């Protein structure tokens, strides 16, 4: 029966698209004249989805999360637009020129990253309580309304041993983002240097390094990281901070293989350039070649990769924490928060706000990932010189 509905729906959409195109053609615009039916079908489908969305937003009582998502997206878009507007009219000329050619997605990404950075740096000031502070009020519900089991002192409530969730969410930015950033930088120092070295020297060094990297890349990275973390936790013993250092090093080494691949590929297309040959014939040393001639020309792809890699590292840390071998308690961390609060999702039907708790930590991860990718896309677009 459902198949019949789908077929009828598709046929109706195609018919709607055809009518739309025919109506458009009657106006004589060239855009309609060269339009094929699949494009017209797409417009019809889009229109139906938009109408359905508006209906759900205003008239479907249960679509609480949908409503929040729509409000969130509109809110973010407005914030990004205002941010871009300010950027276009305030500040030095070079910055203003950047903002003038910026799409809304990129300004949203930059704004979000800025906010995360501020929250992470000033977590100690912004958070109402300490991240490891334990209160007597256990399992306070979010919302801050005493009638519904909340407490104004804990706007997002407390967890099962009485720690303030808002504070932990804020400190999570510091821990998760800070550690991910350190790890990514380490991965780039390692992979980038070796990659450029392999590209410049070539020969047996290139072969040796590349084969070693191949071996490391052949092992599934998350499983490999888990395995190494198990070994590391035995080494670290009771020193919890040492385990965090081990984690940074392990993830950095595993991720540096990807960076190495990119740096070597980019580097080897640069070393064949005549200006490298000119520098070699001048008698320049390896350091000058790599850092003064190759690196400035490789920054665009490396920077783009940095953004992507940062997201992957960030997700790996969150995954490891979710599995219990990442960032160790009592340090607050978004991955661990998702795991600890995951049971609350069952309350979605009764208290949407409570069910949103694990989603907040997950959403913080998702939001940063999306923001970083928007910025990376924009930078890639600029460095590749694509138009339109």
């Amino acid at each position, binding site marked *: 029966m459902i198949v019949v509905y789908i077929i009828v729906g598709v046929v109706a959409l195609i018919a709607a698209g055809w009518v739309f195109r025919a109506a458009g053609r009657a106006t004589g615009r060239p855009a309609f004249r060269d339009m094929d039916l699949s494009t017209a079908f797409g417009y019809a489908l889009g229109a139906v989805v938009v109408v359905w969305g508006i209906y759900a937003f205003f008239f479907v009582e249960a679509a609480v999360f949908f409503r929040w998502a729509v409000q969130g997206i509109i809110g973010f878009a407005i914030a990004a637009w205002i941010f871009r507007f300010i950027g276009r009219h305030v500040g030095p000329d070079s910055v203003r020129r950047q903002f003038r050619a910026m799409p809304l997605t990129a300004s949203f990404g930059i704004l979000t990253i800025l906010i995360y950075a501020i929250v992470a740096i000033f977590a100690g000031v912004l958070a109402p309580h300490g991240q490891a502070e334990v209160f007597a009020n256990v399992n306070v519900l979010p919302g801050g309304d005493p009638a519904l089991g909340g407490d104004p002192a804990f706007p997002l409530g407390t967890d099962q041993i009485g720690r303030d969730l808002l504070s932990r969410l804020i400190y999570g930015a510091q821990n998760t983002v800070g550690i991910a950033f350190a790890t990514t930088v380490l991965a780039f120092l390692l992979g980038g240097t070796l990659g450029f070295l392999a590209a410049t020297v070539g020969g047996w060094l290139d072969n040796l390094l590349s084969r070693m990297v191949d071996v490391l890349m052949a092992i599934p990275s998350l499983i490999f990281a888990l395995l190494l973390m198990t070994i590391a936790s035995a080494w670290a013993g009771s020193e919890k901070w040492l385990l965090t250092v081990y984690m940074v090093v392990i993830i950095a080494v595993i991720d540096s293989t990807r960076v190495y691949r990119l740096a070597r590929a980019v580097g080897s297309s640069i070393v064949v*350039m*005549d200006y490298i*040959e*000119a520098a*070699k014939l001048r008698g*320049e040393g390896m350091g000058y070649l790599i850092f*003064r*001639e190759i690196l400035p*020309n490789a920054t665009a792809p490396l920077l783009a990769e940095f953004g992507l890699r940062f997201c992957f590292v960030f997700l790996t840390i969150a995954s490891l924490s979710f599995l219990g071998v990442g960032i160790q308690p009592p340090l607050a961390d978004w991955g661990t928060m998702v795991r600890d609060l995951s049971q609350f999702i069952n309350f979605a039907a009764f208290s949407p706000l409570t069910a949103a708790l694990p989603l907040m930590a997950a959403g913080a991860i998702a939001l940063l990932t999306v923001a970083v990718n928007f910025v990376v896309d924009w930078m890639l677009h600029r460095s590749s010189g694509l*138009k339109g």
Partner: protein
Amino acid sequence: MNDNAPLLKIRDLRIEGRSDETWLPIVNGIDLDLHRGEVLGLIGESGAGKSTVGLAAMGFTRDGCRISGGSVVFDGQDLVSASADAKRALLGKRIAYVAQSAAASFNPAHKIIDQHTEAPVTHDVMDKAESQADAMELYAKLRLPNPDEIGFRYPHQVSGGQLQRAMTAMAMSCRPDLIVFDEPTTALDVTTQIEVLAAIRRIVDEFDTAAIYITHDLAVVAQMADRIKVLLKGDEVETADTRTMLAHPTEDYTKSLWAVRSFARPVKPAVAEGSVPLVSVRGITAAYGKVDVLRDVSFDMHTGRTVAVVGESGSGKSTVARCITGLLPPRSGMVEFDGTPLPADYRKRTKDQLRQIQMIYQMADTALNPKTRIGDIIGRPVEFYMGLKGRAKRARVNDLLNQIELDPDQYYHRLPSELSGGQKQRVGIARALAAEPRFIICDEVTSALDQLVAEGILKLLARLQDELGLTYMFITHDLATVKAIADEVVVMKDGKVVEQGGKAEMFRPPHHPYTDLLLSSVPEMDPDWLTDLLAERGADNLGDAAIDKM
């Protein structure tokens, strides 16, 4: 249909290109008429908008460009306002396009003949078998070797000149009324260029096809076109019949284009007997892997003189340069500098030995680091070799910039991308000069430049030689450049020196047959040159065939 109506009629064509947020004009109102069977030459330096006009004749613009006004009427149909479907029905069938680089335009994953048959089959002109038979016939007409078999090869399996002819055959596959040729021979050697030119002319005559021939080489356009239109920065300078245009150009700009080829240096006195050559190449044999690319190459270069090394691509002339600089240590033989042997590998040479030999590259785009400012590009060798820092370095760089006729205040902080091609090449020269060398290798330094700009570079090099007593090794395939600047000439073929001597004797018969072929293949401004040459050589005795006979 009225036979007198032009096949293609372009009126007040305006094209704009997108730059950041604004649209800048590229073509400002060009008119053009093209009748059946007529060949129109479009010439101008790069940036003149000639390719843009050529593409617009097919109702097409590059990404980031748009036709902002005017009309392109092909056989009564306006291509500017035509629908995509209507254009699709015309393109490939009645209008065809031959691009500059056939190697880049063929799909490397399909056989040549499969790409050839695509258009006729799609447009229902012929079925596949007919089209294949027709392709072989066209290949034979274009004098491709083994016409029955060559189409079944992949593009990388045939030479550049053959590929360019195959592309012309492909454009002919539907017997179009109009073909746009966009610099079809610019990337080819002189000897190969002849074959392609002859082939294009023959086939255009035979099928009475109208053509737009875009090039920056005046001598080539003189052979091909019935009429010539000169463009400058998107404006028309003048239009006239080829013979009128060559004999009596009216506009100053056209006259300056015509005058470029007149640059020549005074002949220097002969080298004194027994003087020690500055650079002496002694019996060099070199190989990439197992393949010998140089066999027993020897020649001398004396102080203050220019030695031109000529030959077509693959003749090993650039490899000689790599041996002299030490990038490719030769298998046997050696290079002497001022009477003392140089270590074969550049890594074993002293800083001073490296300083004495500098290089200027063909592509200034890849020879200058795009992320380094001009002042730093030139300043680096100053600092590296002379140990100058701070103000002294800045002063030296300013001197060098003045020497290459660029204003230091204006150019010191610029990036290479903010310079024109000729200016970039000048910076490349300044970087070489900064090392205060005695010997400079110029590897095809003018071949990527427009003729007017190239002339400026040649004059600059000549002046610097007079002022600084430099010795040049000038690698080129352009014999006009050789005539202009060389004192001695070394002709290379297949990794061997075929002939060498002073310029005067080289350009005077008798020649080695290969030198003769090279010399006679350089297009001349005379519109009858190609016709006469073909008659003289006999139609079958062109390029490939002629070389094989040696």
